[in-house]
C-alpha cells in the first residue's frame, strides 16, 4: 500500500532497478571497492556528529575554547560526540587517500569515468579544507599556531598572496575574525560543495558501475561478478560496522585532548606540526632552499603543489594509453612515486628534531 503510494510519486522502483542492475566485478582487487563506501560512511558520521556539536559550540575567540570544554565536561556524552568527530575526521581522510590511490593505480579513471575522477578529486580537496578549517575551531594553542603557519604559506604567493592572506584570515593576523570565517567555511560553504559533488559522484558511480581492472577488461570475457544489492552492500555494511566499533573504542580510550587555550600573545610553542595529512607538504617546504632561480623557494614549492594537483585533476585526459585500454606503466610508476614521496616526507616530518 504505502510502497505503491510512494513509488507512484517518487519512482522508487526505478531507483531499485538501478541498484539491482548494478554488478560488482569480483577479482583480486575487489577489496579496494569498499574504500569509497567506507569514506561515505565516515562522512555521514561527520555530518551527524558535526550537527550535534553545533548545538553547543560557539564560534568566537572568547567562547570557542570554553564551549568545547563545556561539551567535553558538562554535556552528557559530549566527550563521545566530539571525540568521534575528531577521530572520524582522521579516519575519513585516511580512507579517502586510500580510495584515491587505489583508483589512481587501478586506472579506474578511464573513459567514461573521467568526471567521476574529477568530482572525486575535488572532494578530496574539500575534505582537506574541512580538516584545515576544523582544526582551528577548538581555538587551542596548537591549532592557533598551526593555522598561523598554514595560512602564512598563502601569503608568499606573488601578486595575490598578501590579499588572499587577508581574505583567508579576515584580517592581518589569525584572530577571532579568522575563527568566525573558518567556522562559516567549515559548517556551511564546504558542506554545500561537498553534498553537491558527492551527489554527482555517487550518481556517476551508479551510472557507470564499478570499473574492472585493465588486465581483466582486456581479456574480453565477462568477468565474475556479484550483485551490488544486496551482496556487495551487505559486505559494505560489515565494513561500516567495524569502523563504527573502532571509532567508539578510539573515542572511549583516547578521547580527543583540548590542550590549552590559544593566546595570540604567547610565544609559539616548539615543534608546531600540522595535521598528519598536511605533513608531507609542510616538510617539503622546509627542505626547499631559500631561493630557486631568483624565485623564493616557498613560492616554487607552492606552485609545484598547485601544478601537481592540477595534473592529478586532469589525469584521465593525460593518460591516453589507459584510455585506449592499453597498459600505461608510466602512470603506474607516477602513482607509486607519489605514495613513496608522501610516506617518506611524512616520516621525516615526524622524526626530525623540531629545532633543526
Amino acid at each position, binding site marked *: 500500500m504505502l510502497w505503491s503510494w510512494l513509488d507512484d510519486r517518487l519512482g522508487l522502483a526505478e531507483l531499485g532497478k538501478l541498484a539491482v542492475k548494478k554488478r560488482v566485478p569480483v577479482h583480486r582487487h575487489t577489496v579496494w571497492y569498499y574504500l569509497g563506501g567506507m569514506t561515505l560512511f565516515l562522512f555521514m558520521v561527520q555530518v551527524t556528529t558535526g550537527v*550535534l556539536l553545533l548545538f553547543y559550540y560557539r564560534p568566537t575567540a572568547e567562547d570557542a575554547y570554553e564551549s568545547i570544554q563545556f561539551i567535553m565536561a*558538562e554535556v552528557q556524552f559530549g566527550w563521545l560526540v566530539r571525540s568521534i568527530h575528531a577521530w572520524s575526521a582522521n579516519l575519513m581522510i585516511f580512507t579517502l587517500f586510500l580510495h584515491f590511490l587505489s583508483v589512481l593505480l587501478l586506472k579506474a579513471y578511464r573513459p567514461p569515468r573521467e568526471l567521476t575522477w574529477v568530482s572525486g578529486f575535488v572532494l578530496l580537496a574539500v575534505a582537506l579544507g574541512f580538516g584545515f578549517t576544523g582544526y582551528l575551531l577548538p581555538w587551542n594553542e596548537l591549532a592557533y599556531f598551526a593555522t598561523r603557519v598554514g595560512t602564512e604559506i598563502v601569503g608568499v604567493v606573488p601578486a595575490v598572496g598578501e590579499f588572499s592572506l587577508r581574505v583567508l584570515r579576515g584580517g592581518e593576523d589569525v584572530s577571532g575574525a579568522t575563527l568566525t570565517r573558518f567556522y562559516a567555511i567549515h559548517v556551511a560553504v564546504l558542506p554545500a560543495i561537498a553534498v553537491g559533488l558527492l551527489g554527482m559522484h555517487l550518481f556517476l558511480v551508479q551510472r557507470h558501475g564499478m570499473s574492472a581492472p585493465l588486465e581483466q577488461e582486456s581479456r574480453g570475457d565477462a568477468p565474475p561478478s556479484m550483485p551490488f544489492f544486496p551482496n556487495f552492500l551487505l559486505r559494505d555494511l560489515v565494513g561500516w560496522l567495524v569502523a563504527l566499533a573502532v571509532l567508539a573504542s578510539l573515542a572511549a580510550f583516547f578521547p580527543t585532548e583540548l590542550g590549552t587555550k590559544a593566546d595570540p600573545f604567547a610565544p609559539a610553542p616548539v615543534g608546531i606540526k600540522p595535521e598528519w595529512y598536511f605533513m608531507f607538504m609542510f616538510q617539503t617546504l622546509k627542505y626547499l632552499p631559500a631561493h630557486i632561480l631568483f624565485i623564493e623557494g616557498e613560492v616554487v614549492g607552492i606552485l609545484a603543489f598547485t601544478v601537481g594537483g592540477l595534473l592529478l585533476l586532469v589525469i584521465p585526459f593525460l593518460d591516453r594509453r589507459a584510455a585506449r585500454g592499453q597498459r600505461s606503466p608510466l602512470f603506474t610508476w607516477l602513482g607509486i612515486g607519489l605514495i613513496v614521496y608522501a610516506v617518506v616526507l611524512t616520516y621525516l616530518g615526524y622524526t626530525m628534531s623540531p629545532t633543526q
Partner: protein
Amino acid sequence: MADGLTQPGQSRRRFVDWLLSRTLTTWLLSTSVGGLVLSVLYPAGRYLVPPAAGESATAAVTLSIKTEDLAPNSGQIFKFGNRPGIVVRTASGDLRAFSATCTHLGCIVQYRSDVSHIWCACHNGHFDLNGLNIQGPPPRPLEAFTVNVRGDEIVVSKGA
C-alpha cells in the same frame, strides 16, 4: 537453504544449516539492529538534554552573589572557571574582583574588613584593593578581573 536436510547422517552439516536458518538470522539481525539503533540514539538523546550546568562557562561568569548581599567593606569567594575568585565591595561601594589564588603558594585569600585588605592567612600576605601585593611574601599582584553589574547580578569577566 534447506537442501542439506535431504542428506541424512550428516549432523554437522545439518547443524550449520540450522544455524543458517532464516529464523535465527532474522532474529540476530533484528535484535542487533535494534540494539545498535538504541546505542546510537541513547547517547545522542542524552547529548541533546540540556546539562545541569546550564550554559558553557565563558570568559565571563554571573555570580550567585547578588549586589545587595555584598555589604560595603566585605568580600566573598566565587568560582571562576576552575579557579577561585574573590569579589570585594570597597567601603566606598565599588565592586572589584580578583583571582583568589595567592601568588605565593596558592592558598585562597580572604577579605579582611578590619584592615580593608585582601589577606592570605597562610603567610600573612596582604594585597590592597587594587590587588597589589603590599606586604608579606606574595611576589606578584593578584590577577584582576572586570566587574559589571547587570540589574542586581554581578558579572565578572577576564580582561578588559
